[in-house]
Protein backbone atom coordinates (compact mmCIF):
# COMPACT_ATOMS: atom_id res chain seq x y z
CA UNK A 1 0.00 0.00 0.00
CA UNK A 2 2.82 2.39 0.85
CA UNK A 3 4.66 1.80 -2.41
CA UNK A 4 1.53 2.28 -4.44
CA UNK A 5 0.94 5.54 -2.66
CA UNK A 6 4.35 6.98 -3.45
CA UNK A 7 4.50 5.94 -7.08
CA UNK A 8 1.04 7.03 -8.06
CA UNK A 9 1.36 10.23 -6.06
CA UNK A 10 4.50 11.02 -8.03
CA UNK A 11 2.43 11.00 -11.21
CA UNK A 12 -0.79 12.36 -9.84
CA UNK A 13 0.24 15.58 -8.15
CA UNK A 14 2.36 16.99 -11.03
CA UNK A 15 -0.34 15.88 -13.47
CA UNK A 16 -2.89 17.72 -11.40
CA UNK A 17 -0.77 20.84 -11.48
CA UNK A 18 -0.28 20.53 -15.24
CA UNK A 19 -3.98 20.04 -15.75
CA UNK A 20 -4.77 23.15 -13.73
CA UNK A 21 -2.45 25.16 -15.96
CA UNK A 22 -4.07 23.69 -19.04
CA UNK A 23 -7.58 24.47 -17.80
CA UNK A 24 -6.61 28.01 -16.89
CA UNK A 25 -5.19 28.42 -20.39
CA UNK A 26 -8.31 27.05 -22.05
CA UNK A 27 -11.01 28.57 -19.94
CA UNK A 28 -9.73 31.94 -18.89
CA UNK A 29 -9.35 35.15 -20.86
CA UNK A 30 -6.35 35.98 -18.72
CA UNK A 31 -4.66 32.63 -18.21
CA UNK A 32 -1.51 33.86 -16.51
CA UNK A 33 -3.54 35.85 -14.02
CA UNK A 34 -5.70 32.81 -13.40
CA UNK A 35 -2.71 30.55 -12.89
CA UNK A 36 -1.05 33.00 -10.54
CA UNK A 37 -4.24 33.27 -8.56
CA UNK A 38 -4.70 29.52 -8.54
CA UNK A 39 -1.25 28.49 -7.34
CA UNK A 40 -0.11 31.44 -5.32
CA UNK A 41 -3.41 33.02 -4.34
CA UNK A 42 -3.91 30.93 -1.20
CA UNK A 43 -0.41 31.83 -0.08
CA UNK A 44 -0.48 35.48 -1.02
CA UNK A 45 -1.90 36.86 2.18
CA UNK A 46 -2.43 35.80 5.76
CA UNK A 47 -6.16 36.00 5.15
CA UNK A 48 -6.01 33.57 2.23
CA UNK A 49 -3.57 31.24 3.94
CA UNK A 50 -5.62 31.11 7.10
CA UNK A 51 -8.79 30.56 5.12
CA UNK A 52 -7.20 27.68 3.27
CA UNK A 53 -5.97 26.03 6.47
CA UNK A 54 -9.36 26.59 8.07
CA UNK A 55 -11.16 24.78 5.28
CA UNK A 56 -8.67 21.94 5.69
CA UNK A 57 -9.93 21.25 9.25
CA UNK A 58 -13.26 19.56 8.38
CA UNK A 59 -11.48 17.84 5.49
CA UNK A 60 -8.97 16.39 7.92
CA UNK A 61 -11.66 15.16 10.28
CA UNK A 62 -13.53 13.67 7.36
CA UNK A 63 -10.37 11.99 6.17
CA UNK A 64 -9.76 10.53 9.64
CA UNK A 65 -13.34 9.30 9.76
CA UNK A 66 -13.12 7.65 6.36
CA UNK A 67 -9.69 6.19 7.10
CA UNK A 68 -10.91 4.43 10.23
CA UNK A 69 -13.85 3.02 8.32
CA UNK A 70 -11.67 1.89 5.40
CA UNK A 71 -9.10 0.27 7.67
CA UNK A 72 -11.84 -1.78 9.29
CA UNK A 73 -13.13 -2.94 5.94
CA UNK A 74 -16.13 -0.65 5.74
CA UNK A 75 -16.92 2.35 3.61
CA UNK A 76 -18.81 5.13 5.34
CA UNK A 77 -20.77 7.06 2.72
CA UNK A 78 -22.89 8.87 5.27
CA UNK A 79 -20.40 11.66 5.92
CA UNK A 80 -22.65 14.49 4.78
CA UNK A 81 -25.44 13.61 7.17
CA UNK A 82 -23.06 12.86 10.03
CA UNK A 83 -21.26 16.20 9.72
CA UNK A 84 -24.60 18.01 9.59
CA UNK A 85 -26.04 16.07 12.53
CA UNK A 86 -22.92 16.66 14.62
CA UNK A 87 -22.96 20.36 13.92
CA UNK A 88 -26.66 20.72 14.53
CA UNK A 89 -26.80 18.76 17.79
CA UNK A 90 -23.80 20.69 19.09
CA UNK A 91 -25.46 23.99 18.18
CA UNK A 92 -28.81 23.02 19.66
CA UNK A 93 -27.21 22.00 22.94
CA UNK A 94 -25.03 25.11 23.01
CA UNK A 95 -28.04 27.35 22.48
CA UNK A 96 -29.84 25.78 25.41
CA UNK A 97 -26.74 25.95 27.63
CA UNK A 98 -26.14 29.64 27.08
CA UNK A 99 -22.85 31.00 28.46
CA UNK A 100 -21.02 27.78 29.10
CA UNK A 101 -17.50 28.59 27.95
CA UNK A 102 -14.94 25.98 26.96
CA UNK A 103 -16.40 23.16 29.12
CA UNK A 104 -19.64 23.80 27.28
CA UNK A 105 -17.86 23.50 23.94
CA UNK A 106 -16.39 20.18 24.97
CA UNK A 107 -19.80 18.91 26.08
CA UNK A 108 -21.51 20.05 22.91
CA UNK A 109 -18.87 18.66 20.58
CA UNK A 110 -19.07 15.41 22.50
CA UNK A 111 -22.83 15.34 22.11
CA UNK A 112 -22.57 16.05 18.40
CA UNK A 113 -19.99 13.32 18.00
CA UNK A 114 -22.18 10.89 19.91
CA UNK A 115 -25.24 11.50 17.76
CA UNK A 116 -23.28 11.39 14.51
CA UNK A 117 -21.50 8.28 15.72
CA UNK A 118 -24.83 6.63 16.42
CA UNK A 119 -25.86 7.24 12.83
CA UNK A 120 -22.72 5.49 11.69
CA UNK A 121 -23.19 2.77 14.28
CA UNK A 122 -26.67 2.03 12.92
CA UNK A 123 -25.19 1.12 9.55
CA UNK A 124 -22.45 -0.84 11.26
CA UNK A 125 -24.95 -2.70 13.37
CA UNK A 126 -27.06 -3.60 10.35
CA UNK A 127 -23.92 -4.88 8.66
CA UNK A 128 -22.94 -6.94 11.67
CA UNK A 129 -26.36 -8.48 12.17
CA UNK A 130 -27.70 -8.86 8.66
CA UNK A 131 -24.76 -8.23 6.34
CA UNK A 132 -26.56 -5.14 5.05
CA UNK A 133 -24.29 -3.21 2.73
CA UNK A 134 -23.00 -0.37 4.93
CA UNK A 135 -22.24 1.88 1.94
CA UNK A 136 -25.85 2.01 0.91
CA UNK A 137 -27.37 2.09 4.39
CA UNK A 138 -25.09 4.90 5.55
CA UNK A 139 -25.76 6.86 2.37
CA UNK A 140 -29.54 6.51 2.67
CA UNK A 141 -29.44 7.40 6.35
CA UNK A 142 -27.35 10.45 5.57
CA UNK A 143 -29.85 11.66 2.94
CA UNK A 144 -32.60 11.33 5.52
CA UNK A 145 -30.65 13.16 8.23
CA UNK A 146 -29.81 16.04 5.90
CA UNK A 147 -33.47 16.55 5.06
CA UNK A 148 -34.59 16.33 8.68
CA UNK A 149 -31.95 18.76 9.93
CA UNK A 150 -32.75 21.11 7.03
CA UNK A 151 -36.33 21.13 8.25
CA UNK A 152 -35.33 21.71 11.87
CA UNK A 153 -33.12 24.65 10.92
CA UNK A 154 -35.67 26.34 8.68
CA UNK A 155 -38.47 25.59 11.13
CA UNK A 156 -38.28 25.59 14.92
CA UNK A 157 -34.61 26.58 15.21
CA UNK A 158 -34.51 29.34 12.64
CA UNK A 159 -33.06 32.69 13.59
CA UNK A 160 -35.61 35.17 12.22
CA UNK A 161 -33.24 38.08 12.66
CA UNK A 162 -30.63 36.80 10.27
CA UNK A 163 -30.46 37.10 6.49
CA UNK A 164 -29.26 33.54 6.15
CA UNK A 165 -31.09 30.30 6.78
CA UNK A 166 -29.46 29.53 10.08
CA UNK A 167 -29.97 28.97 13.76
CA UNK A 168 -29.18 31.66 16.27
CA UNK A 169 -25.52 32.22 17.06
CA UNK A 170 -24.07 30.43 20.05
CA UNK A 171 -22.91 32.52 22.99
CA UNK A 172 -19.64 34.44 22.62
CA UNK A 173 -17.95 32.47 25.38
CA UNK A 174 -18.25 29.36 23.24
CA UNK A 175 -16.55 30.71 20.16
CA UNK A 176 -13.15 29.15 19.50
CA UNK A 177 -10.40 31.76 19.33
CA UNK A 178 -8.97 32.92 16.03
CA UNK A 179 -5.27 32.20 15.95
CA UNK A 180 -4.21 33.92 12.75
CA UNK A 181 -6.02 37.22 12.37
CA UNK A 182 -7.30 38.59 10.06
CA UNK A 183 -8.02 35.14 8.70
CA UNK A 184 -10.72 32.86 10.01
CA UNK A 185 -8.35 30.12 11.14
CA UNK A 186 -9.56 28.87 14.48
CA UNK A 187 -7.80 26.89 17.20
CA UNK A 188 -9.70 23.85 15.99
CA UNK A 189 -6.72 23.13 13.79
CA UNK A 190 -4.71 22.03 16.81
CA UNK A 191 -7.52 19.67 17.75
CA UNK A 192 -7.53 18.31 14.22
CA UNK A 193 -3.78 17.72 14.19
CA UNK A 194 -3.92 16.08 17.61
CA UNK A 195 -6.77 13.87 16.43
CA UNK A 196 -4.76 12.77 13.40
CA UNK A 197 -1.77 11.77 15.53
CA UNK A 198 -4.07 10.09 18.05
CA UNK A 199 -5.76 8.06 15.33
CA UNK A 200 -2.45 6.98 13.90
CA UNK A 201 -1.30 5.82 17.34
CA UNK A 202 -4.61 4.10 17.92
CA UNK A 203 -4.46 2.23 14.64
CA UNK A 204 -0.81 1.27 14.65
CA UNK A 205 0.31 1.07 18.26
CA UNK A 206 -2.57 -0.49 20.13
CA UNK A 207 -4.10 -3.94 20.20
CA UNK A 208 -7.45 -2.40 19.44
CA UNK A 209 -6.03 -0.93 16.26
CA UNK A 210 -4.42 -4.19 15.28
CA UNK A 211 -7.66 -6.11 15.69
CA UNK A 212 -9.50 -3.43 13.76
CA UNK A 213 -7.09 -3.61 10.85
CA UNK A 214 -7.09 -7.39 10.85
CA UNK A 215 -10.86 -7.46 10.67
CA UNK A 216 -10.65 -5.12 7.73
CA UNK A 217 -7.93 -6.96 5.88
CA UNK A 218 -9.17 -10.48 6.31
CA UNK A 219 -12.47 -11.08 7.99
CA UNK A 220 -12.18 -14.84 8.04
CA UNK A 221 -8.70 -14.73 9.52
CA UNK A 222 -9.99 -12.43 12.22
CA UNK A 223 -12.87 -14.79 13.00
CA UNK A 224 -10.56 -17.77 13.28
CA UNK A 225 -8.17 -15.75 15.41
CA UNK A 226 -10.92 -15.24 17.94
CA UNK A 227 -11.31 -11.52 17.39
CA UNK A 228 -14.77 -10.18 18.18
CA UNK A 229 -15.41 -9.30 14.56
CA UNK A 230 -18.94 -8.16 15.33
CA UNK A 231 -17.65 -5.43 17.62
CA UNK A 232 -14.94 -4.49 15.14
CA UNK A 233 -17.57 -4.16 12.44
CA UNK A 234 -19.89 -1.70 14.09
CA UNK A 235 -17.57 0.17 16.45
CA UNK A 236 -15.29 1.59 13.71
CA UNK A 237 -18.43 2.85 11.99
CA UNK A 238 -19.36 4.54 15.26
CA UNK A 239 -15.91 6.11 15.49
CA UNK A 240 -16.12 7.16 11.87
CA UNK A 241 -19.43 8.89 12.39
CA UNK A 242 -18.17 10.46 15.62
CA UNK A 243 -15.14 11.92 13.83
CA UNK A 244 -17.33 13.35 11.08
CA UNK A 245 -19.60 14.80 13.74
CA UNK A 246 -16.65 16.33 15.58
CA UNK A 247 -15.54 17.98 12.35
CA UNK A 248 -18.99 19.42 11.89
CA UNK A 249 -19.29 20.61 15.48
CA UNK A 250 -15.86 22.25 15.43
CA UNK A 251 -16.74 23.96 12.15
CA UNK A 252 -19.72 25.45 13.96
CA UNK A 253 -17.80 26.62 17.03
CA UNK A 254 -14.74 27.71 15.13
CA UNK A 255 -16.02 29.25 11.91
CA UNK A 256 -19.75 29.71 11.56
CA UNK A 257 -20.80 30.13 15.21
CA UNK A 258 -24.26 28.89 14.27
CA UNK A 259 -25.66 25.99 12.31
CA UNK A 260 -26.10 27.31 8.79
CA UNK A 261 -28.31 25.37 6.45
CA UNK A 262 -26.21 23.10 4.27
CA UNK A 263 -22.92 24.12 5.88
CA UNK A 264 -21.97 20.49 5.55
CA UNK A 265 -22.03 20.76 1.79
CA UNK A 266 -19.43 18.39 0.35
CA UNK A 267 -17.58 18.07 3.66
CA UNK A 268 -18.55 14.41 3.76
CA UNK A 269 -17.54 13.54 0.21
CA UNK A 270 -14.39 15.64 0.28
CA UNK A 271 -13.36 13.97 3.52
CA UNK A 272 -13.67 10.60 1.83
CA UNK A 273 -11.74 11.90 -1.15
CA UNK A 274 -8.89 13.16 1.05
CA UNK A 275 -8.76 9.80 2.84
CA UNK A 276 -8.42 8.04 -0.50
CA UNK A 277 -5.74 10.51 -1.50
CA UNK A 278 -3.86 9.72 1.69
CA UNK A 279 -4.22 5.98 1.26
CA UNK A 280 -6.41 5.81 4.40
CA UNK A 281 -3.43 6.78 6.57
CA UNK A 282 -4.29 9.28 9.35
CA UNK A 283 -0.96 11.11 9.32
CA UNK A 284 -0.73 11.27 5.51
CA UNK A 285 -4.19 12.80 5.65
CA UNK A 286 -2.68 16.05 6.99
CA UNK A 287 -0.76 17.03 3.84
CA UNK A 288 -3.52 15.51 1.71
CA UNK A 289 -6.15 17.70 3.35
CA UNK A 290 -3.98 20.79 2.93
CA UNK A 291 -3.35 19.92 -0.74
CA UNK A 292 -7.07 19.45 -1.33
CA UNK A 293 -7.92 22.68 0.48
CA UNK A 294 -5.25 24.44 -1.57
CA UNK A 295 -6.88 23.36 -4.85
CA UNK A 296 -10.30 24.51 -3.61
CA UNK A 297 -9.02 27.86 -2.36
CA UNK A 298 -6.90 28.37 -5.44
CA UNK A 299 -9.87 27.81 -7.70
CA UNK A 300 -11.99 30.24 -5.72
CA UNK A 301 -9.33 32.92 -5.76
CA UNK A 302 -8.66 32.42 -9.47
CA UNK A 303 -12.39 32.83 -10.07
CA UNK A 304 -12.51 36.07 -8.12
CA UNK A 305 -9.81 37.74 -10.19
CA UNK A 306 -10.49 36.28 -13.64
CA UNK A 307 -13.31 34.63 -15.56
CA UNK A 308 -12.29 31.08 -14.67
CA UNK A 309 -15.07 29.05 -13.14
CA UNK A 310 -14.49 27.83 -9.59
CA UNK A 311 -15.55 24.43 -10.87
CA UNK A 312 -12.12 23.75 -12.28
CA UNK A 313 -11.28 22.62 -8.75
CA UNK A 314 -13.58 19.63 -9.26
CA UNK A 315 -12.01 18.79 -12.58
CA UNK A 316 -8.50 18.90 -11.17
CA UNK A 317 -9.44 16.92 -8.09
CA UNK A 318 -11.08 14.31 -10.30
CA UNK A 319 -7.99 13.97 -12.47
CA UNK A 320 -5.77 13.63 -9.41
CA UNK A 321 -7.95 10.84 -8.04
CA UNK A 322 -8.05 8.98 -11.30
CA UNK A 323 -4.29 9.04 -11.52
CA UNK A 324 -3.75 8.15 -7.88
CA UNK A 325 -5.93 5.12 -8.08
CA UNK A 326 -4.31 3.63 -11.17
CA UNK A 327 -2.16 1.00 -9.61
CA UNK A 328 -0.68 0.10 -12.97
CA UNK A 329 1.92 2.73 -12.26
CA UNK A 330 3.20 0.72 -9.37
CA UNK A 331 5.29 -2.20 -10.51
CA UNK A 332 4.71 -4.29 -7.40
CA UNK A 333 0.95 -4.02 -7.60
CA UNK A 334 0.98 -4.91 -11.29
CA UNK A 335 3.03 -8.02 -10.64
CA UNK A 336 0.59 -9.06 -7.94
CA UNK A 337 -2.39 -8.50 -10.19
CA UNK A 338 -1.01 -10.35 -13.18
CA UNK A 339 -0.02 -13.22 -10.93
CA UNK A 340 -3.60 -14.17 -10.23
CA UNK A 341 -7.13 -13.26 -11.15
CA UNK A 342 -8.41 -9.98 -9.76
Amino acid sequence: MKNRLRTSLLFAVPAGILLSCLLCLLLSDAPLEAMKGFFFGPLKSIYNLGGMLNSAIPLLFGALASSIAIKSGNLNLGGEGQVYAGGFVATALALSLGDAGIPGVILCVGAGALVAGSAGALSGFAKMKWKTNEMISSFLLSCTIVLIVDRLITGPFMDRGSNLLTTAKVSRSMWLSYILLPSQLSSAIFIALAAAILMKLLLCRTRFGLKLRLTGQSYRFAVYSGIRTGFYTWFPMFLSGALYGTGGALAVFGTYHSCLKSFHSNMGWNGLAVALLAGADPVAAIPAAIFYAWIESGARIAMQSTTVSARIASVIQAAVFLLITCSVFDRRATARIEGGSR
Partner: protein
Amino acid sequence: MTYILSSVLVTICPLLLAAMGGLFSNIGGTLNIALEGLMLLGSFTGYLFCWYTGSLFLGLLCSSALTAAAAALLALIVFRLKAQPFIAGLALNLLFGGLCPILSGRLFGTEGVLSLNGIPAPSAALFSVLTAVMTALTLVILFMTPFGLRLRACGMNRDAVLCAGLSPERLEIRSWSVCGALCALAGSAVSLQLGSYVPGATSGKGWIALVIVFLGGNRPLGLAGAAMVFALAEALGNHLQGLWSIPAEYILALPYILTLTVLVIFSAVGRRRKSFKSA
Protein backbone atom coordinates in the same frame (compact mmCIF):
# COMPACT_ATOMS: atom_id res chain seq x y z
CA MET B 1 -55.32 8.43 -8.63
CA THR B 2 -54.30 9.33 -12.19
CA TYR B 3 -52.17 12.09 -10.72
CA ILE B 4 -50.25 9.59 -8.64
CA LEU B 5 -49.92 7.28 -11.62
CA SER B 6 -48.55 9.96 -13.89
CA SER B 7 -46.11 11.23 -11.29
CA VAL B 8 -44.94 7.65 -10.66
CA LEU B 9 -44.26 7.28 -14.39
CA VAL B 10 -42.34 10.54 -14.50
CA THR B 11 -40.24 9.56 -11.48
CA ILE B 12 -39.61 5.97 -12.45
CA CYS B 13 -38.25 6.53 -15.96
CA PRO B 14 -34.87 8.08 -15.14
CA LEU B 15 -34.40 5.78 -12.15
CA LEU B 16 -35.16 2.60 -14.04
CA LEU B 17 -33.11 3.56 -17.09
CA ALA B 18 -30.08 4.36 -14.96
CA ALA B 19 -30.65 1.20 -12.94
CA MET B 20 -30.64 -0.85 -16.17
CA GLY B 21 -27.31 0.74 -16.96
CA GLY B 22 -26.07 -0.16 -13.51
CA LEU B 23 -27.34 -3.69 -14.04
CA PHE B 24 -25.19 -4.09 -17.14
CA SER B 25 -22.11 -3.20 -15.17
CA ASN B 26 -23.04 -5.09 -12.00
CA ILE B 27 -23.85 -8.31 -13.79
CA GLY B 28 -20.35 -8.24 -15.22
CA GLY B 29 -18.94 -8.21 -11.72
CA THR B 30 -18.05 -4.59 -11.03
CA LEU B 31 -20.62 -2.05 -9.96
CA ASN B 32 -20.31 1.26 -11.78
CA ILE B 33 -20.39 3.99 -9.15
CA ALA B 34 -20.36 6.74 -11.74
CA LEU B 35 -24.08 6.50 -12.61
CA GLU B 36 -24.57 9.91 -11.03
CA GLY B 37 -21.93 11.61 -13.17
CA LEU B 38 -23.00 9.83 -16.35
CA MET B 39 -26.61 10.85 -15.77
CA LEU B 40 -25.50 14.43 -15.32
CA LEU B 41 -23.52 14.31 -18.54
CA GLY B 42 -26.45 12.71 -20.34
CA SER B 43 -28.84 15.29 -18.98
CA PHE B 44 -26.67 18.18 -20.12
CA THR B 45 -25.66 16.77 -23.52
CA GLY B 46 -29.16 15.50 -24.20
CA TYR B 47 -30.52 18.97 -23.73
CA LEU B 48 -27.64 20.48 -25.67
CA PHE B 49 -27.86 18.19 -28.69
CA CYS B 50 -31.65 18.34 -28.87
CA TRP B 51 -31.36 22.10 -29.01
CA TYR B 52 -28.53 22.01 -31.53
CA THR B 53 -30.07 19.47 -33.90
CA GLY B 54 -33.69 20.39 -33.32
CA SER B 55 -34.63 16.73 -33.32
CA LEU B 56 -35.31 14.56 -30.27
CA PHE B 57 -34.04 11.40 -31.92
CA LEU B 58 -30.74 12.84 -33.12
CA GLY B 59 -30.21 14.65 -29.85
CA LEU B 60 -30.74 11.53 -27.76
CA LEU B 61 -28.57 9.52 -30.13
CA CYS B 62 -25.63 11.90 -29.95
CA SER B 63 -25.99 12.28 -26.21
CA SER B 64 -26.03 8.50 -25.71
CA ALA B 65 -23.01 8.07 -27.95
CA LEU B 66 -21.02 10.69 -26.08
CA THR B 67 -21.92 9.36 -22.64
CA ALA B 68 -21.20 5.80 -23.79
CA ALA B 69 -17.76 6.97 -24.85
CA ALA B 70 -17.21 8.58 -21.46
CA ALA B 71 -18.28 5.38 -19.71
CA ALA B 72 -15.99 3.37 -21.97
CA LEU B 73 -13.12 5.66 -21.03
CA LEU B 74 -13.87 5.10 -17.36
CA ALA B 75 -14.02 1.35 -17.99
CA LEU B 76 -10.65 1.52 -19.71
CA ILE B 77 -9.17 3.27 -16.70
CA VAL B 78 -10.70 0.77 -14.30
CA PHE B 79 -9.98 -2.44 -16.17
CA ARG B 80 -6.85 -1.71 -18.17
CA LEU B 81 -5.11 0.71 -15.83
CA LYS B 82 -6.32 -1.28 -12.81
CA ALA B 83 -7.87 1.66 -11.05
CA GLN B 84 -10.02 1.05 -8.01
CA PRO B 85 -13.60 1.12 -9.35
CA PHE B 86 -15.01 3.03 -6.43
CA ILE B 87 -12.52 5.86 -6.47
CA ALA B 88 -12.58 6.09 -10.25
CA GLY B 89 -16.37 6.28 -10.18
CA LEU B 90 -16.30 9.02 -7.54
CA ALA B 91 -13.70 10.87 -9.60
CA LEU B 92 -15.90 10.73 -12.68
CA ASN B 93 -18.88 12.05 -10.72
CA LEU B 94 -16.69 14.90 -9.54
CA LEU B 95 -15.34 15.47 -13.05
CA PHE B 96 -18.70 15.87 -14.73
CA GLY B 97 -20.03 17.79 -11.78
CA GLY B 98 -17.42 20.38 -12.64
CA LEU B 99 -17.24 19.99 -16.41
CA CYS B 100 -20.93 20.48 -17.17
CA PRO B 101 -21.24 23.84 -15.37
CA ILE B 102 -17.98 24.98 -16.98
CA LEU B 103 -19.25 24.08 -20.47
CA SER B 104 -22.60 25.63 -19.72
CA GLY B 105 -20.84 28.81 -18.67
CA ARG B 106 -18.64 28.93 -21.76
CA LEU B 107 -21.44 28.13 -24.22
CA PHE B 108 -24.39 29.96 -22.73
CA GLY B 109 -22.86 32.37 -20.27
CA THR B 110 -24.58 30.90 -17.26
CA GLU B 111 -23.92 28.01 -14.94
CA GLY B 112 -27.52 28.01 -13.81
CA VAL B 113 -30.81 27.00 -15.33
CA LEU B 114 -30.90 26.81 -19.13
CA SER B 115 -34.18 27.52 -20.86
CA LEU B 116 -33.47 27.50 -24.55
CA ASN B 117 -35.97 27.83 -27.36
CA GLY B 118 -36.28 25.33 -30.12
CA ILE B 119 -36.18 22.23 -27.99
CA PRO B 120 -38.70 19.72 -29.32
CA ALA B 121 -40.99 18.79 -26.49
CA PRO B 122 -41.25 15.09 -25.87
CA SER B 123 -44.72 13.62 -25.82
CA ALA B 124 -46.01 12.60 -22.42
CA ALA B 125 -45.60 8.89 -23.02
CA LEU B 126 -42.31 8.96 -24.89
CA PHE B 127 -39.98 8.23 -22.03
CA SER B 128 -42.34 5.74 -20.42
CA VAL B 129 -42.45 3.75 -23.65
CA LEU B 130 -38.69 4.13 -24.03
CA THR B 131 -38.12 2.83 -20.52
CA ALA B 132 -40.37 -0.16 -21.10
CA VAL B 133 -38.63 -0.92 -24.38
CA MET B 134 -35.20 -0.62 -22.78
CA THR B 135 -36.20 -2.91 -19.92
CA ALA B 136 -37.41 -5.52 -22.37
CA LEU B 137 -34.25 -5.09 -24.47
CA THR B 138 -32.08 -5.49 -21.36
CA LEU B 139 -33.87 -8.70 -20.49
CA VAL B 140 -33.36 -10.01 -24.01
CA ILE B 141 -29.73 -8.96 -24.31
CA LEU B 142 -28.65 -10.20 -20.92
CA PHE B 143 -30.48 -13.50 -20.90
CA MET B 144 -30.99 -14.46 -24.53
CA THR B 145 -27.84 -13.46 -26.38
CA PRO B 146 -24.29 -14.83 -26.36
CA PHE B 147 -22.97 -11.44 -25.25
CA GLY B 148 -25.27 -11.51 -22.24
CA LEU B 149 -24.22 -15.02 -21.35
CA ARG B 150 -20.55 -14.10 -21.53
CA LEU B 151 -21.14 -11.00 -19.46
CA ARG B 152 -22.97 -12.94 -16.79
CA ALA B 153 -20.19 -15.51 -16.79
CA CYS B 154 -17.72 -12.69 -16.31
CA GLY B 155 -19.55 -11.69 -13.17
CA MET B 156 -19.75 -15.20 -11.82
CA ASN B 157 -16.29 -16.50 -12.59
CA ARG B 158 -13.67 -14.41 -14.33
CA ASP B 159 -11.26 -17.29 -14.69
CA ALA B 160 -13.84 -19.33 -16.57
CA VAL B 161 -14.16 -16.54 -19.11
CA LEU B 162 -10.38 -16.39 -19.47
CA CYS B 163 -10.26 -20.13 -19.97
CA ALA B 164 -12.89 -19.86 -22.66
CA GLY B 165 -10.48 -17.66 -24.56
CA LEU B 166 -12.39 -14.43 -24.13
CA SER B 167 -11.20 -11.20 -22.67
CA PRO B 168 -13.19 -10.24 -19.57
CA GLU B 169 -11.89 -6.67 -19.80
CA ARG B 170 -13.30 -6.25 -23.29
CA LEU B 171 -16.66 -7.60 -22.21
CA GLU B 172 -16.76 -5.29 -19.27
CA ILE B 173 -15.73 -2.26 -21.29
CA ARG B 174 -18.53 -2.99 -23.75
CA SER B 175 -21.09 -3.45 -20.98
CA TRP B 176 -19.99 -0.19 -19.35
CA SER B 177 -20.49 1.60 -22.67
CA VAL B 178 -24.06 0.32 -22.76
CA CYS B 179 -24.39 1.49 -19.18
CA GLY B 180 -23.28 4.94 -20.26
CA ALA B 181 -25.80 5.07 -23.09
CA LEU B 182 -28.64 4.09 -20.75
CA CYS B 183 -27.58 6.67 -18.17
CA ALA B 184 -27.62 9.28 -20.92
CA LEU B 185 -31.22 8.39 -21.69
CA ALA B 186 -32.02 8.56 -17.99
CA GLY B 187 -30.48 12.01 -17.67
CA SER B 188 -32.17 13.24 -20.83
CA ALA B 189 -35.48 11.99 -19.44
CA VAL B 190 -35.07 14.41 -16.56
CA SER B 191 -34.02 17.49 -18.50
CA LEU B 192 -36.28 17.02 -21.50
CA GLN B 193 -39.34 16.27 -19.42
CA LEU B 194 -38.69 19.40 -17.41
CA GLY B 195 -38.22 21.43 -20.58
CA SER B 196 -35.12 23.11 -19.22
CA TYR B 197 -31.75 22.04 -17.96
CA VAL B 198 -31.70 22.50 -14.21
CA PRO B 199 -28.32 21.80 -12.67
CA GLY B 200 -28.88 19.45 -9.77
CA ALA B 201 -32.13 17.99 -11.12
CA THR B 202 -30.37 14.65 -11.46
CA SER B 203 -28.47 14.86 -8.19
CA GLY B 204 -29.11 11.87 -5.99
CA LYS B 205 -30.87 9.90 -8.71
CA GLY B 206 -27.70 8.10 -9.69
CA TRP B 207 -27.18 6.92 -6.13
CA ILE B 208 -30.81 5.80 -5.87
CA ALA B 209 -30.34 3.86 -9.11
CA LEU B 210 -27.38 2.11 -7.46
CA VAL B 211 -29.56 1.17 -4.51
CA ILE B 212 -32.19 -0.14 -6.93
CA VAL B 213 -29.58 -2.29 -8.66
CA PHE B 214 -28.58 -3.63 -5.29
CA LEU B 215 -32.12 -4.42 -4.23
CA GLY B 216 -33.21 -5.80 -7.58
CA GLY B 217 -31.07 -8.89 -7.39
CA ASN B 218 -29.52 -8.64 -10.85
CA ARG B 219 -32.80 -9.29 -12.63
CA PRO B 220 -34.40 -6.62 -14.83
CA LEU B 221 -37.85 -7.34 -13.45
CA GLY B 222 -36.54 -7.22 -9.89
CA LEU B 223 -35.07 -3.84 -10.71
CA ALA B 224 -38.39 -2.68 -12.08
CA GLY B 225 -40.04 -3.76 -8.84
CA ALA B 226 -37.53 -1.95 -6.67
CA ALA B 227 -37.79 1.18 -8.81
CA MET B 228 -41.55 1.00 -8.55
CA VAL B 229 -41.34 0.89 -4.74
CA PHE B 230 -39.17 3.96 -4.71
CA ALA B 231 -41.21 5.90 -7.25
CA LEU B 232 -44.46 5.03 -5.49
CA ALA B 233 -43.05 6.24 -2.19
CA GLU B 234 -42.04 9.52 -3.75
CA ALA B 235 -45.33 10.01 -5.57
CA LEU B 236 -47.40 9.12 -2.50
CA GLY B 237 -45.30 11.46 -0.44
CA ASN B 238 -45.86 14.32 -2.84
CA HIS B 239 -49.58 13.63 -2.84
CA LEU B 240 -49.76 13.42 0.96
CA GLN B 241 -47.85 16.65 1.26
CA GLY B 242 -50.82 18.40 -0.21
CA LEU B 243 -53.39 16.45 1.77
CA TRP B 244 -51.91 16.69 5.25
CA SER B 245 -49.58 19.58 5.92
CA ILE B 246 -46.45 17.59 6.51
CA PRO B 247 -43.32 19.66 5.90
CA ALA B 248 -41.82 19.14 2.47
CA GLU B 249 -38.47 17.87 3.74
CA TYR B 250 -40.06 14.97 5.61
CA ILE B 251 -41.89 13.98 2.45
CA LEU B 252 -38.66 14.14 0.50
CA ALA B 253 -37.05 11.91 3.10
CA LEU B 254 -39.77 9.27 2.78
CA PRO B 255 -38.30 7.45 -0.26
CA TYR B 256 -34.91 7.23 1.45
CA ILE B 257 -36.38 5.89 4.67
CA LEU B 258 -38.51 3.42 2.77
CA THR B 259 -35.61 2.20 0.68
CA LEU B 260 -33.45 1.88 3.79
CA THR B 261 -36.16 -0.15 5.55
CA VAL B 262 -36.59 -2.37 2.49
CA LEU B 263 -32.82 -2.81 2.26
CA VAL B 264 -32.51 -3.87 5.90
CA ILE B 265 -35.51 -6.21 5.70
CA PHE B 266 -34.15 -7.76 2.51
CA SER B 267 -30.76 -8.43 4.05
CA ALA B 268 -32.26 -9.74 7.28
CA VAL B 269 -34.62 -12.09 5.47
CA GLY B 270 -32.24 -12.98 2.67
CA ARG B 271 -29.54 -14.13 5.04
CA ARG B 272 -31.59 -17.10 6.12
CA ARG B 273 -31.92 -18.28 2.55
CA LYS B 274 -28.36 -17.79 1.43
CA SER B 275 -25.74 -20.39 2.17
CA PHE B 276 -22.59 -19.38 3.98
CA LYS B 277 -20.59 -16.95 1.89
CA SER B 278 -17.36 -15.25 2.79
CA ALA B 279 -17.97 -11.84 4.28
